């Protein structure tokens, strides 16, 4: 918990300091580029928090609590967890602390950095465009958020699929030896390409895009409702 708080404050500080440094010491005029650079650094740092959280999330999601295990062959050797704590405990016991924090860390960093940049640039560009005035205050944030989410997901999705596959495999150890071969990102990429070509890298993209749209619609709606209450009290 303390570690997370620390990382969080480091993130805030780094993001702010980067932005200020760029503002003072460089001749870059565009706020978009500054935001992209600051966002990139923030993405790099947040990866260290995001990676273990996503690892637990993926293990929870990919488990298969099949009632009839014989029929579902991919569930036969997989672990089943009751909740997140159970999952973390199992991982620490069977894979070690190092795996919890480092399993899939690099690929997370590779994914986080461009996604932050894509998101900010897309949103900033849309918000400055004349479309914003046409749509008006209520529709614009909803639509722009969803579009920015898509702009973030479509280019980084191939990285995300490799990351998910990498983190879903367990590196369980029995008597100090690894029980199964754990593929690294490059091997997974090669395997995916052999199996399905480029198309294979975009499996499951549709629900991800639907998720981005729903998430942004709900988030912005709630955000706007709350800000409507708070805005009169905002200090200058």
């Amino acid at each position, binding site marked *: 918990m303390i570690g997370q*708080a620390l990382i*969080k404050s480091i993130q*805030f500080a780094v*993001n*702010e300091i980067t*932005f*200020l440094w760029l503002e003072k010491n460089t001749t870059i005029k565009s706020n978009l580029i500054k*935001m992209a650079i600051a*966002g990139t650094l*923030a993405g790099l740092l*947040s990866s260290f*928090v995001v990676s273990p*959280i996503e690892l637990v*999330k993926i293990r929870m*999601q*990919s488990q298969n609590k*099949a*009632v009839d295990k014989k029929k579902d062959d*991919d569930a036969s050797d997989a672990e089943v967890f009751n*909740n*997140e704590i159970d999952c973390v405990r199992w991982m620490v016991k069977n894979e070690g602390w190092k795996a919890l924090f480092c399993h899939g860390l690099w690929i997370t960093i590779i994914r986080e950095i461009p996604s932050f940049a894509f*998101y*900010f640039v897309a*949103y*900033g560009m849309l*918000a400055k465009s004349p479309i*914003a005035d046409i749509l*008006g*205050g209520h529709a614009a944030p909803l639509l722009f*958020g969803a579009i*920015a989410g898509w702009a973030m997901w479509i280019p980084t999705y191939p990285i995300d*699929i490799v990351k*998910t596959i990498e983190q*879903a*495999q367990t590196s369980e150890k029995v008597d100090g030896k690894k029980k199964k071969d754990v593929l690294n990102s490059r091997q997974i990429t090669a*395997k*995916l390409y052999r*199996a*399905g070509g480029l198309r294979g890298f975009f*499996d499951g993209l549709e*629900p*991800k895009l*639907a*998720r981005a749209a729903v998430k*942004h619609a*709900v*988030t912005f709606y*709630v*955000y*706007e*409702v*709350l*800000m409507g*209450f*708070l*805005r*009169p*009290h*905002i*200090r200058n």
Partner: protein
Amino acid sequence: MKSCISFVGLLAVGNCDNISQRSPTHKRYRQFSNSVSISKHTSSIIQAKSYRRSNQHPSIYNIRGGDTNISSTTSLSVSATMASLFAGSIGGAIGVGISYPFDTLSTKAQVSTGKEGQQLSLTKSIGRIWKNEGVRGFFEGVLVTVSRRYQPYTLIRMTYLFTHLMHLFPIYHNSYLTLFLLYTLSLYN
């Protein structure tokens, strides 16, 4: 820029606002450090200022800038960062919670592609989750995902603001805000 990390997108709203409108950086720092303060003077001047400011920037960020009149009867003032942090964390949690089943479907598809090298159809996937686990199956791991939004740093600030809000504004007692707090708490249990 400080608040953009965990609530990636929506705080971009507040941040664009910050960057374009207030360049003196020390001012932003000061606002950040004492983000909630309760002034004893009823701040009609501030209100007038904010009204003018919202007229100067009729962008998508200042939708309801000047049309509400609550601040004349109350004395709370919040920094822009704090407000968007607060609204963003609650909005983000609800957004993540509601959209989570899609994420589960996506992960299932990704994992099955990795294992079998072939695509798992959406309908088949939905049917399988429903059959095996019911509704809960769609929400496996939602807690840890939402908790990303509630790391201690954010939580402390949010709680602080919220206690002030609840004391000061009876208007909020039976409104969305209460509902959101209950929703958030229920996520923790």
